[in-house]
């Protein structure tokens, strides 16, 4: 396969990481390998569709994820694949010039640019909790989204409101789909998302001129169609009833299933166990921590407490259905809590000294 590609395609493209990237994307998209040249062609067409990336209530973790993309890396993505016309974290322009660019892009590419939104949109008190250039996030979205070709809501915040929307949602934060109803909105959820899911979506869009198939929550099926639990390397332990009972115990050391210490894999849909992260073959479960369900709507409320087991999960080996009532925090024997609280800690060779005598 790789040989065929090398013959049919410019070796320059290979060096730039496109063949690898498009092969990975084709696999992620569930496309046949014969589609790879088509993806490469679309990715390098020199059309470079304009992209506007807006930031609202967010932590910039999704932008950092974009920075971490490889095959192709961001440099090639910017130089060859897309034209990133507005992105506040990387753009040279500031202030007035930045605003001008936004307006120009919208005007000159009306109906053609791809809008990517990072961050939730606060609606409480008329949106005063997030203002850019004197305008609320809500107004900016209402101005830009209708003129786009399609909207990608990137990450948990833009997709479903994210952490700021967690109870009691003090700023009234919502996701893009709650506001934009007259344009296709695709949710690439996750906190943050996996770069391959974004790349796959963009390549699909460039190659077929339409968005990939979505699930009922607006997520592309190619990335969110499979349950974490069904593709987890610890699944055999789950099936045999071998569980970590508490963090750091012998079972944890054996790499047993993390269900009882809170893993949300049984109710979470994402490609983490198969595509993994950062090209070093890792994901949360591989480093001994349960899945927290970050691709699911409102997971900050529906998946918490994160370290308690999910109720109503059937365990094959025993056939027991755990119900919510039996979920309880285990009392773990530790003496540390009995030790007095010291507000004074030494820092460096010197001392950061605590507040009052009462706390000393």
């Amino acid at each position, binding site marked *: 396969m790789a040989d065929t590609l090398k013959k049919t395609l410019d070796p320059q493209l290979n060096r730039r990481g496109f063949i690898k990237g498009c092969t990975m994307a084709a696999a992620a998209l569930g496309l046949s390998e014969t589609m790879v040249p088509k993806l490469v062609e679309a990715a390098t067409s020199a059309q470079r569709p304009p992209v506007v990336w807006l930031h609202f209530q967010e932590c910039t*973790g999704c932008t950092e994820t974009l*920075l971490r993309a490889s095959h192709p890396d961001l440099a090639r993505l910017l130089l060859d694949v897309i034209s990133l016309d507005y992105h506040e974290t990387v753009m040279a322009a500031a202030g007035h010039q930045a605003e001008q660019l936004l307006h120009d892009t919208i005007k000159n590419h009306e109906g053609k640019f791809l809008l990517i939104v990072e961050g939730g949109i606060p609606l409480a008190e008329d949106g005063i909790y997030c203002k850019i*250039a004197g305008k609320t996030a809500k107004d900016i979205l209402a101005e830009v989204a209708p003129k786009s070709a399609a909207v990608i809501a990137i990450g948990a915040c833009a997709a479903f409101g994210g952490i700021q929307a967690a109870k009691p949602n003090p700023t009234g934060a919502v996701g893009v789909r709650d506001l934009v109803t007259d344009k296709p909105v695709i949710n690439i959820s996750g906190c943050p998302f996996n770069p391959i899911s974004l790349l796959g979506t963009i390549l699909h869009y460039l190659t077929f001129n339409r968005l990939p198939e979505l699930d009922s929550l607006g997520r592309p099926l190619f990335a969110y169609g499979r349950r974490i639990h069904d593709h987890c390397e610890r699944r055999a332990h789950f099936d045999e009833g071998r569980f970590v009972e508490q963090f750091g115990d012998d079972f944890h050391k054996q790499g047993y299933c993390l269900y009882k210490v809170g893993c949300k894999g049984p109710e979470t849909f994402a490609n983490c166990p198969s595509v993994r992260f*950062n090209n070093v073959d890792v994901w949360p479960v591989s*480093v*001994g*921590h349960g899945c927290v369900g970050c691709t699911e709507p409102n997971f900050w409320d529906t998946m918490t407490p994160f370290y308690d087991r999910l109720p109503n999960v059937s365990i094959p080996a025993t056939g027991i259905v755990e119900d919510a009532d039996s979920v309880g925090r285990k009392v773990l024997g530790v003496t540390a809590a009995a030790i007095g609280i010291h507000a004074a800690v030494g*820092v460096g060779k*010197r001392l950061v000294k605590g507040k009052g005598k009462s706390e000393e």
Partner: protein
Amino acid sequence: MSERIVIDPVTRIEGHLKIEVEINNGVVTDAWSSGTLFRGIETILKGREPEEAWLLTQRLCGVCTYIHGVSSVRSVENALGLSVPQNARLVRNLLTGGLYVHDHPVHFYHLSALDWVDIVSALSASPAATESLAYSLSPNAPAIDFAATQVDLRSFVDSGKLGPFAGGYWGHSAYTLSPEENLLFAAHYLHALRQQVKAGRMHAIFGGKNPHVQSLRVGGVTCKDEITSSRISQFRNILNEMRHFIDTIYLPDVQHLATAYPDWAGIGGFKNYLAFGEFQMSDSDPGELFLPCGVIMNKNIDQIEDVMLGQINEHVQHSWYEGNTARYPQNGETVPNYTGYDTADRYSWLKAPRYNGQPMEVGPLARVLVAYGLGQPQVVAAVDQFLNAANLTIADMHSTMGRAAARAIETKVIADQMGAWLDQLKRGATAMVSTSIPATASGFGLNEAPRGALGHWINIEGGKIGNYQMVVPSTWNLGPRCASGDRGPVEEALIGTPVVDAEKPIEILRIVHSYDPCIACAVHVTDNDRDSHYIVKAV
């Protein structure tokens, strides 16, 4: 003549920030820094489990990912009186170190370099002359094809789609580098973009992913099984490649920039510094730190004082929060009350933390000056070498350029130390102690984020989070005036700055960016016609 200009959004930062300055005869005479985003995380934390707070607080910032997680875990460990096993301490040091090694070069090349480097000018450079320049600055640097970079840039520009390079202040008289210098930095901008992808992998190896690692836990780390020979050597390979990058590209570039813009070693400085210190060196004494803590007042690095936490108060007189009582963070309140943008009254979502009533700069420069003043040997050596090479003195460090220098210096010092922590990791050793949350307790977790001193304060009530307050670096640096009306550090640092062209206030961006703001917003320049006695210009 007096005029006011507003930059909103300020771009190439994390978060949403607006900067307003008053300019008289081409010099900044007053300044206001306004955070325009509020997310309410403190409120959301109330009533949740103390052990899972770290997963939420990590989402404060995806740029300084991890660090808010570890502060939170430490605050609970402090409340419980726990100390963590050696492997956990070392993994945490490696994760924190990995963050610095990733984040500082990204700040230099991708967030701040475009304030100094004219990308368009790079098109007229001679690639051959650029190559000799690169060789003269750093003979051991990895070979870079400057001609190819120029071709890439040219086809980029010729396509008419400049992407992120559109709308810059290109051609501004404040850009004084030669075309070859500009091409060199442009090529390194792209090189560093690839390098940071690899740096992020150090985090992923022991953290499961980056950004937002998932291997922390109150009592230690969960990644015990990943502490294997192959993972350690994988980590070490990336680390060594990063060290080579730091020594042969990043540090020489910052040194060269300092030489090329000597004036900026005298502009944009501040005087008071606060560092909590970081990198625990001992399992028995959490106070033994690789980079020490300390307080510097009035630039006096010969007299470094202890940090007294009780001296920290957060003011809200000029912020959009209820009341005007300055409070110690443990008893802090975060009750939003937006009253409109008014520089004479309340104008920011940031609070104004003060130490002993004084505004304090936190961050790389604070850490480096405290360590230098206390004679930390690796820091002293790296600072002296830098100053020598850039033909500067220690007094020049209190400046915009000093911040860029301190960032590069500490990146080197930390990266050079990380190999020792890798060596000390013990395969198979325990990495976690078990915990149980008491009904009532309180604690704090201190830390150094890449952007500066960071503190989390937790009160546990009924086994749940009763109150949770955070004082973050950008609040120290970019917060508004305090109750007595004194400006915050960035506001003060802007005073006296010459601005050649108020339409293109690049000088202001240089200073603001030197603090590496992390507010999760951007700055745009807007109209402000509220003050009729000023001529207000939209920049």
